[in-house]
């Protein structure tokens, strides 16, 4: 996955993501693509969650999946989640759950719960950084005010790092793929540098839905695992999602 929160010169925040999923889950020889990725595309839906006839939050999700990976609380915050791989992974959390140790939260249930119940960017940040989890994860959170944007790096038990927008020091965007931002990505899976190159080339004054979509459409940021692209603007109350495909030649991840 690739997620980004960026602030333009007027202080408006944009939040966008490519959702990549299905690595090693079967290769479809006929279509030259990952099987599960291909089968997930028809399940992608935008959902407007309402209470008393009013929108509580909106999301891009998969039919049949009750947790959330991408969503926005209009006027308040936007949230995406990227997978974080670790030896101390979610399978240990699941085993613990089966054995009766149930003090951790399922990752996608936490994001859904935050989207449903948190009432501010700060509250969302606190919940995402402090709640014990069954699996490690990256939470990418955007708000509606200048410098409200961060990447929260989580292990199952602790918050390892919060990387925040910092305009004074030139950090007008934060961009996360599937590696800790303070470490180099795997050389065979470096989507971060091409993505950051495109962000720098675009520059803060030209950032928009269009230019972020351009960045997310550039190979290898766009790859064979990319299922959908979502673009969000909290202040404009806009969420747009598009199904994606990566024609050959294209990286398998």
């Amino acid at each position, binding site marked *: 996955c690739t997620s980004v929160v960026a602030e333009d010169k007027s202080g408006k925040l944009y939040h966008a993501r490519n959702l990549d999923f299905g690595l090693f889950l079967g290769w479809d020889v006929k279509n030259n693509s990952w099987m599960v990725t291909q089968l997930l595309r028809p399940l992608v839906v935008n959902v407007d969650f309402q209470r008393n006839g009013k929108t509580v939050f909106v999301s891009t999700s998969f039919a049949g999946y009750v947790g959330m990976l991408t969503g926005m609380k209009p006027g308040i915050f936007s949230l995406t989640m990227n997978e974080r791989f670790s030896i101390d992974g979610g399978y240990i959390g699941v085993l613990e759950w089966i054995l009766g140790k149930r003090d951790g939260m399922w990752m996608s249930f936490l994001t859904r719960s935050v989207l*449903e119940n948190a009432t501010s960017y700060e509250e969302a940040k606190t919940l995402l950084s402090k709640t014990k989890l069954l699996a490690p994860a990256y939470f990418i959170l955007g708000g509606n005010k200048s410098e409200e944007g961060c990447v929260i790096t989580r292990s199952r038990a602790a918050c390892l790092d919060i990387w925040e927008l910092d305009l004074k020091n030139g950090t007008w965007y934060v961009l996360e793929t599937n590696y800790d931002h303070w470490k180099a990505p795997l050389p065979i899976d470096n989507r971060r540098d091409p993505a950051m190159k495109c962000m720098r080339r675009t520059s803060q004054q030209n950032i928009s839905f269009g230019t972020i979509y351009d960045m997310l459409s550039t190979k290898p940021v766009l790859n064979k695992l990319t299922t959908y692209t979502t673009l969000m603007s909290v202040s404009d109350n806009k969420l747009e999602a*598009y199904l994606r495909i990566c024609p050959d030649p294209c990286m398998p991840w």
Partner: protein
Amino acid sequence: QDVPPYTEDCRSGTYPPSGPTFKGNVSWYTVNLDQAPQERWQKLISEKKTALSILIQAIKDLATSFFPSEKIIKLVDTKLPLLIGTLPCPFGEEIKGIADASGLPLGEVMLFNIFYEVFTV
């Protein structure tokens, strides 16, 4: 680049989406949180149950190719539903509603919902 990772120059002018990297728009649905958790997803699932069945069957086929005895599928179908009551509210009830609406075994719908935790290794 003509070799992996096929890195391109930064794209421009791709928005509004069209062309070979655009597969289609995503449809909107409404989920009413005032409804009982078991009923919330019924309309959406009634439209998407075929696609959901195909995906879950593909995952089962994949699992069977690694564990040909089908023991893993039996485990999912018989043991995983026993954990549904341990999931926090309203998620267990919503998953039950999705299994009912789709006609898929509860354990298989539950597996789909905890896929992330299982695949972070």
